[in-house]
């Protein structure tokens, strides 16, 4: 698929500048603290960490579902609080674990959500829906009119990815999108998505607690522990980082014979 955002690539970056976030805007007892990093255009950044380490919070700070208690998040050259949140979010695809598909919409209507909000013509929308269904490996004629309840977990997640890509946003946020799938389906989707991500050239921020998934998909891994960044490395360098939490994650792979880490 050709990217229509050639001019936007330069801007499609994300910067965290000394960001702290705590409930009700307080800096005491923060959920994430003193976070600073940048994501270059086209990069796939994986935020890795245990449950409760603050990964999802960072993701939600990017599309302004949350606002920093201190510091700032800059997305495509503008601080998130300066963005109109609706405009900001329309330019950011979002995929979550349970897919969050609208049960009262068909597959096609789900995928066409952002195009319909952006008031695309129906012919253009229909063509885009079919294009995306094909892209995520679902036969359009067969799946277009189905309801989410008539899909398997893996198919729902494919539709979730298609919906996130609908308006061709330069940025994609993914919160453990394959976390609820059975291991075989998960591996299939991971590999397909890995190929898809390389082809699309989107800036992707991907949250997971699965090191194997991180190593497969990432161009860069940031490891979080208790709301702070404890490692920031390429997948190649990551296993060599000297930090107890990194070793803990590596150890979690160990019982598996032939681990390709």
């Amino acid at each position, binding site marked *: 698929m050709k990217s229509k955002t050639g001019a936007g690539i330069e801007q499609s970056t994300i910067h965290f500048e000394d960001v702290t976030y705590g409930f009700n805007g307080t800096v005491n007892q923060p959920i994430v603290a003193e976070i600073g990093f940048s994501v270059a255009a086209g990069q796939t950044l994986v935020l890795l960490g245990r449950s409760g380490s603050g990964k999802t919070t960072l993701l939600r700070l990017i*599309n302004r*579902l949350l606002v920093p208690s201190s510091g700032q998040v800059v997305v495509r050259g503008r601080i998130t609080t300066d963005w109109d*949140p*609706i*405009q*900001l*979010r*329309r330019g*950011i695809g*979002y995929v*979550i*674990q*349970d*897919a*969050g*598909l*609208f*049960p*009262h919409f068909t597959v096609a209507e789900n995928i066409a*959500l*952002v195009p319909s*909000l952006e008031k695309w013509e129906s012919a253009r929308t229909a063509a885009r829906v079919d294009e995306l269904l094909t892209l995520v490996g679902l036969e359009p004629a067969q799946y277009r009119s189905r309801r989410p*309840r008539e899909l398997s977990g893996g198919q729902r997640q494919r539709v*979730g990815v298609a*919906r996130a890509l609908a308006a061709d946003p330069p940025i994609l*946020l993914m919160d453990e999108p394959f976390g609820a799938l059975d291991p075989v389906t998960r591996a299939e989707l991971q590999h397909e998505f890995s190929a898809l991500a390389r082809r699309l050239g989107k800036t992707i921020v991907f949250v997971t607690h699965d090191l194997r998934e991180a190593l497969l998909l990432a161009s860069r891994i940031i490891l979080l522990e208790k709301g702070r960044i404890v490692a920031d490395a390429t997948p190649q360098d990551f296993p060599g980082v000297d930090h107890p939490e990194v070793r803990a994650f590596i150890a979690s792979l160990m019982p598996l014979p032939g681990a390709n880490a």
Partner: protein
Amino acid sequence: MSPWIFFLEHRAEILEATANHLTLVLISMAIAIAIAVPLGMLIVHRRTLRNIALTLASIFQTIPSLALFGFLIPIPFIGGIGRRTAIVALVLYALLPILRNTYVGLTGIDPAVLEAAEAMGMTESQILLRVRLPLARAVILAGIRTATIITIGVATIAAAIGAGGLGTFIFRGVAMVSDAVILAGAIPAALLAIAADLLLGLLERRLKIT
């Protein structure tokens, strides 16, 4: 006198009272829905208004119906003897089930769906109209169903303040100590309630999204 003979002899009168009763119920329900559903939408994001609205609606519901009709009689404009007062009372009774179900339906939605909607850049009103409302309609209809059945029952008491309807027979029957006359009001009222329950139940199942 056998109830059957009484029914046959007074069938025109009973039919007219049933029609009156139904009109009373339909007008009251239409007004109650027009108030409670938009109000339920309004209180989704407004906590203070929500507490006030739900408390008020609950209070109306706790007032014994005969007393409520009585209270309304001396109130200017909305009160007095007759159908208008009865409608005001019936509306007040019907508010709570509709309001509560509207609120519960609109807020009891899978958080993942709401999160996705917000993250995709839907505005609050788009989420309300295109996500919350369609997903809540079966629950809202369940509230309307409950309210309709309550209203059909309470509307029999409206006869006490001269609003007509099937209560006319019931009050007359009580005064005359005649089961036949009471049943002439009670049976059609019960049948109306059962019919409404079945019909709205059917509609509710059709609206349900699994």
